[in-house]
């Protein structure tokens, strides 16, 4: 029997925690915290060279600026940091590796003085040849971005190749692809490329660090998605015990992966731990135009995919070559490369698989985690290639997808059986709602209209042993506090946890509070990434709430002299029908119950819960095979309807329909928010986003003037967000993640729609106005494909693809 009753439990539409404070502007973000006049401010002096030895750095003029306290250079703070591979120093040591790399940190009494000081630092360099093209960097070792690669520590599940620019090489080898290609009726080989893109969160990174003078203890307030991972990375890099570091993570203004792991904190520590500074708090606020130069962005990629298809339209073999341009650091970026690799048959069952997925160093700002984590990259290519293949063999692209679909129980590319899902229902709904099989005339005069479709899939990409824990406290007035170190950066984690606690405790959601992470008070959680929180931390919160409930029921049972099973908690009232009792939870749950035995029993009720995925096995390094490579996959699909103005190349999205099988919507308001928000972010990425560089490697698009993201004017006329609920077995309520998934496939769906509208295939993202205009002109010249790759002279698609055989 269910012993709890509540209105806003799991599955209820309810308003969100902390939205009230956000609406009135009183929620304090990191930049809003005040530290008094002792606070110092830091600003980075940055490299103007893409690759060079540092001959000298002159800080003498900077030190003369009123208010400048110290200028720290790389030699003052030589520590390597990294989540998966320790290849990053916060300040350049000996060499600069990209334009914009921090070379010195000016610390001053005011932000203005730090800026002035920064302008007065000078450096002399001896040029080294840079490498910007990831294909060249991967295949020609004449320029090495990290000649010291051999000496870097890394986790066992990544494979760097010292003596090359390859920071990670992930492989899948299954069956015999060459034999299958030879026996195939059709062989289709196509390529897609995409530049780096940026998270575009509206709150720039901000961090305050303080070293306690006498104890050396560190306190870090930061815009961090993952307080505990940050603490661990810092502790490892410094050789500090964990307990000497306290990380406080105030609310953050958007993350999308860009504030995961460790981002700017070590740079701030270079100031705060300086012998001349320690004892005073140092604040590092990253100005907007330096955000993309200070922390990671999404990796650029070139993907080549070869499919073998039999006479029935069944895909029999796939050969993948993925080059991820990871810039100068792969400390985080090594893993999206792996994530794309172990999902590299997409939403399809393909018996013979060969995948090489590489993280390649180049002299550019670096790549790392970004919503989707390797999967928007994979699907951006795969769903386009599938579309091309279907058309080449004369099959409807949707029928082709359904025919080859990775149905429940079939092996994924790593060999694990696919979990339960209803992707075919989702496909059916989208085909129907978007009238995907009908040609419709354009709504705008003189424009052309097209429709496109793409599937999506993603598993949480994390180490096999990523764990979570939570504490649930019942207060003396029946209120509840949940300590769960997930960062609620807008995705709504605390609302979901409050709903879980309400469900398990029968206490109204209004009485439940969740607090932002602080490593000093909260129990451990690995990271707020991978769309894992409502699942992994959800397990921990559910277990903690259940633990608290059982303790509470046991106490009331003893107090009322009955069995715990006869007691219910309804809207915060503890009831026992048999005994005719109904009492609101009161101070006894804090101070103890005076039992019929004449003794006090109990004391504060604290529930605890922990979770670690029990059965994940890292893929075999040679073959990529594993009985269970990931915890589960969430699947979905996107249909889009676009119109193009042939005169200008302008693209308008009329409508999008996006559906995902999320197992169970714990917090529907947030599920809808994640699908709507991610869909628009995906459209923005597909249509307008790219980081561009000049020939010396200087970023040309550092801020929102040049790096365009979707505004309210770019939102499609209609966005249909929906979900299916095929429960996941090992899950708090059957739920699976969805936060990243919505970003994965809008871009390829648009690409396919543009082909439908224009009859020419665009192989390069973004597919915005300029490129679409070019495509229209190329089509008039008889071209069937367009390919633009910034590092090659040869821009003919056919020749470019031939070149890398």
């Amino acid at each position, binding site marked *: 029997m269910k012993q709890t009753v509540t209105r806003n439990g799991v599955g209820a539409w309810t308003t969100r925690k902390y939205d009230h404070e956000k*609406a009135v*502007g009183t929620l304090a973000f990191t930049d809003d915290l005040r530290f008094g006049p002792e606070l110092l401010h830091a600003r980075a002096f940055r490299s103007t060279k893409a690759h060079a030895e540092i001959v000298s750095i002159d800080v003498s003029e900077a030190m003369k600026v009123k208010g400048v306290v110290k200028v720290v250079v790389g030699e003052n703070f030589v520590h390597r940091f990294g989540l998966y591979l320790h290849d990053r120093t916060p300040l350049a040591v000996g060499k600069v590796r990209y334009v914009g790399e921090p070379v010195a940190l000016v610390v001053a009494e005011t932000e203005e003085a730090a800026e002035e000081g920064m302008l007065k630092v000078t450096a002399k360099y001896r040029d080294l040849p840079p490498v910007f093209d990831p294909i060249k960097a991967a295949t020609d070792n004449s320029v090495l971005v990290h000649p010291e690669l051999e000496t870097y520590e890394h986790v066992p599940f990544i494979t760097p190749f010292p003596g090359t620019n390859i920071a990670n090489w992930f492989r899948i080898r299954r069956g015999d692809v060459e034999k299958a290609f030879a026996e195939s009726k059709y062989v289709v080989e196509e390529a897609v490329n995409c530049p780096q893109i940026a998270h575009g969160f*509206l709150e720039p990174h901000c961090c305050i660090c303080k070293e306690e003078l006498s104890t050396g203890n560190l306190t870090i307030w930061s815009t961090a998605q993952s307080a505990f991972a940050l603490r661990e990375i810092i502790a490892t890099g410094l050789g500090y015990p964990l307990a000497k570091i306290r990380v406080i993570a105030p609310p953050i203004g958007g993350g999308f992966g860009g504030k995961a792991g460790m981002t700017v904190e070590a740079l701030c520590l270079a100031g705060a731990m300086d012998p001349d500074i320690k004892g005073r708090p140092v604040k590092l606020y990253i100005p907007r135009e330096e955000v993309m130069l200070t922390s990671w962005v999404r990796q650029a990629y070139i993907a080549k995919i070869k499919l073998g298809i039999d006479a029935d339209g069944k895909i029999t073999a796939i050969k993948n070559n993925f080059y991820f341009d990871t810039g100068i650091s792969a400390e985080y970026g090594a893993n999206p490369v792996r994530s794309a690799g172990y999902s590299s048959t997409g939403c399809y069952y393909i018996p013979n698989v060969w995948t090489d997925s590489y993280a390649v160093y180049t002299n550019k700002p670096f790549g790392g985690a970004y919503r989707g984590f390797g999967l928007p990259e994979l699907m951006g290519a795969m769903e386009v290639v599938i579309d091309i293949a279907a058309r080449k063999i004369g099959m409807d692209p949707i029928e082709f997808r359904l025919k080859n679909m990775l149905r429940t129980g079939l092996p994924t590319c790593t060999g694990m059986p696919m979990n339960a899902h209803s992707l075919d229902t989702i496909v059916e709904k989208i085909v129907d709602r978007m009238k995907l099989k009908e040609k419709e005339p354009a709504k705008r005069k003189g424009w052309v209209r097209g429709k496109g479709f793409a599937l999506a899939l993603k598993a949480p990409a994390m180490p096999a042993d990523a764990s979570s824990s939570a504490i649930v406290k019942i207060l003396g007035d029946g209120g509840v506090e949940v300590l769960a170190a997930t960062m609620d950066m807008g995705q*709504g984690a605390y609302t979901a946890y409050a709903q879980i606690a309400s469900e398990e405790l029968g206490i109204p959601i209004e009485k439940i509070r969740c607090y932002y992470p602080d490593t000093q008070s909260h129990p451990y959680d690995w990271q707020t990434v991978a769309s894992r929180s409502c699942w992994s931390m959800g397990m921990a919160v559910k277990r903690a709430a259940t633990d608290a409930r059982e303790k509470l029921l046991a106490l009331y049972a003893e107090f009322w002299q009955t069995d715990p099973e006869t007691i219910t908690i309804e809207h915060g009232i503890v009831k026992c029908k048999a005994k005719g009792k109904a009492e609101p939870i009161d101070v006894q749950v804090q101070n103890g119950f005076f039992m019929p035995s004449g003794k006090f029993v109990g004391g504060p009720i604290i529930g605890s819960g922990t979770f670690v995925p029990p059965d994940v096995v890292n893929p075999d390094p040679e073959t990529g095979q594993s009985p269970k490579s990931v915890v589960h996959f969430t699947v979905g699909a996107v249909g889009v309807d676009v119109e193009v103005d042939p005169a200008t190349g302008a693209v308008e999205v009329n409508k999008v329909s996006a559906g995902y099988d999320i197992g169970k919507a714990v917090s529907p308001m947030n599920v*809808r928010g994640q699908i709507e928000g991610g869909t628009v972010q995906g459209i923005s990425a597909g249509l307008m986003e790219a980081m561009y560089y000049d020939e010396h490697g200087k970023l040309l698009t550092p801020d*929102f003037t040049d790096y365009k993201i*979707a*505004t309210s004017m770019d*939102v499609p006329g209609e*966005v249909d967000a929906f979900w299916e609920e095929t429960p996941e077995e090992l899950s708090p309520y059957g739920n699976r993640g969805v936060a990243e998934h919505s970003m994965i496939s809008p871009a390829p769906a648009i690409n396919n729609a543009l082909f439908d509208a224009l009859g020419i295939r665009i192989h390069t993202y973004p597919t915005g106005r300029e490129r679409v205009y070019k495509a229209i002109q190329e089509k008039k010249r008889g071209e069937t494909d367009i390919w633009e790759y910034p590092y090659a002279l040869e821009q003919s698609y056919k020749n470019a693809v031939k070149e890398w055989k």
Partner: protein
Amino acid sequence: MKRDVNFILNGRPVTLSVEPRTTLLRALREYGVTSVKRGCEEGECGTCTLVIDDLAQKSCMVLALEVEGKSVLTVEGLVAPNGDLHPLQQAFVEEGAIQCGFCTPGMIMTAYAFLRKNPDPTEAEVREALAGNLCRCTGYIPIFRAVMKAAKTMRELGSHPGAAR
């Protein structure tokens, strides 16, 4: 050299002492009004938006000295004296128009100034009015819903709360 600037902040007269080069954004944040967010300080993102004499302005693009004698309204100032949320704030909460909340104060202030001028807008007009305020989280869709809903509530109330300021 610092100079004084006198203005009305959320209905109360204040005097701030500022450098001539200090922006209104930095001056207000320094003073303790941190609902105005600095997302870029380059006039690109809209997170610093507030209302000066009925006009939505990006406070990173205004020098503090420029508001001498004017009335400045930030999102804190929309809350009724009894603590009730303004219909716009309420609608943002109810419609899921807030995720991280970093764009929210600026977004609400733009919508506030817009609805004062156009109390019965079409959704297309709302989209256009919000075009200078970026939001990376929500995809704007719930924000459109919230502004339309707030407009309706305010028309039904027959008043525009906060107008007295």
